[in-house]
């Protein structure tokens, strides 16, 4: 599974958004959800609620089973178009991996897509449901091993975050 880290806090995310922008939150329900709940339905709804209460215009919440499927993104875009909603969105906050964001940038080139995650490498979900990074990318400076490193520890070493956006980070 993909081990995804969050690159910004909620405050930093807010600073990238304008109050006049129409926002969609796009959340992945597979790996990103397993990365301490960065993605998934709960984190999507929580972020939407936080942003709305802070005066931002969250127009859409999209939950995809897996955002690394090009066809899934394409199908969702086509639905937005057919429903007349596509032009109602200015910016997308992906709660998904970096690779999903690359796919989204190809298929939704006229939308601003927030760069809020980095893929640290590949890992596994252990018996406790914790994502363990076992094969980090070279840029992380971390070592590959069967034991791996839990995502929270990896995030701390890399100056990043795990899990959903939170008010009080």
């Amino acid at each position, binding site marked *: 599974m993909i081990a995804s880290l969050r690159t910004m806090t909620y405050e930093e995310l807010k600073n990238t958004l304008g109050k006049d922008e129409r926002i969609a939150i796009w959340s992945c329900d597979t790996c990103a959800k397993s990365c301490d709940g960065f993605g998934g339905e709960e984190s999507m709804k929580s972020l939407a609620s936080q942003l709305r209460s802070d005066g931002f215009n969250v127009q859409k919440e999209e939950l995809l089973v897996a955002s690394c499927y090009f066809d899934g993104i394409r199908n969702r875009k086509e639905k937005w178009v057919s429903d007349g909603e596509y032009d109602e969105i200015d910016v997308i906050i992906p709660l998904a991996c*970096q690779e999903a964001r690359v796919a989204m940038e190809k298929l939704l080139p006229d939308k601003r897509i927030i760069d809020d995650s980095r893929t640290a490498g590949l890992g*596994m979900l252990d018996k406790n449901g914790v994502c363990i990074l076992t094969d980090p990318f*070279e840029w992380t400076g971390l070592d590959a091993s*069967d034991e791996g490193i839990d995502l929270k520890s990896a995030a701390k070493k890399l100056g990043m975050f795990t899990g959903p956006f939170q008010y009080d980070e």
Partner: protein
Amino acid sequence: MVSVSRAIPYQEIVNNLNKEEGVAIISCNACANYCRTGGRRAMTNMSSDLEADGFNVVISKVIPKACILTNFDNVSLPDDVDTVLMMACVSGLRAANRVFSDKRIISSNETLGIGYYDSSKRGSVLVSPYSGYQDKVGKVFPNRNNGSSEGGENE
């Protein structure tokens, strides 16, 4: 979810096996299946080829996602299995190393990095490569033009 892998040449795999040992094949049905380096069809082909070449394949099993340790809970290996041949990405290999610590674990694949699956290209596109595979970015695995697991055309 999409790790991108390609198959190690068959001859290299059999060079790492001997005909006296019992072999279990475990094949991942997720990302590796999209790259045709895992899944049921690749597993069946591997099993047939090994048996035809005189190797002792004791059991073959497909599991949904080899990077989730609990997915191994229902995999019970017979006592005469000495070696597990993992048809998965490196995450599945790591998981097997943990689960079957008393067996020799080998892989049929090399993992190139992470990407996304595009059905119109009938494969997975490499986005984030591991070291040594930077020149494969944008290529599609498997190569639909010749059916090999080597990367196909750039996007």
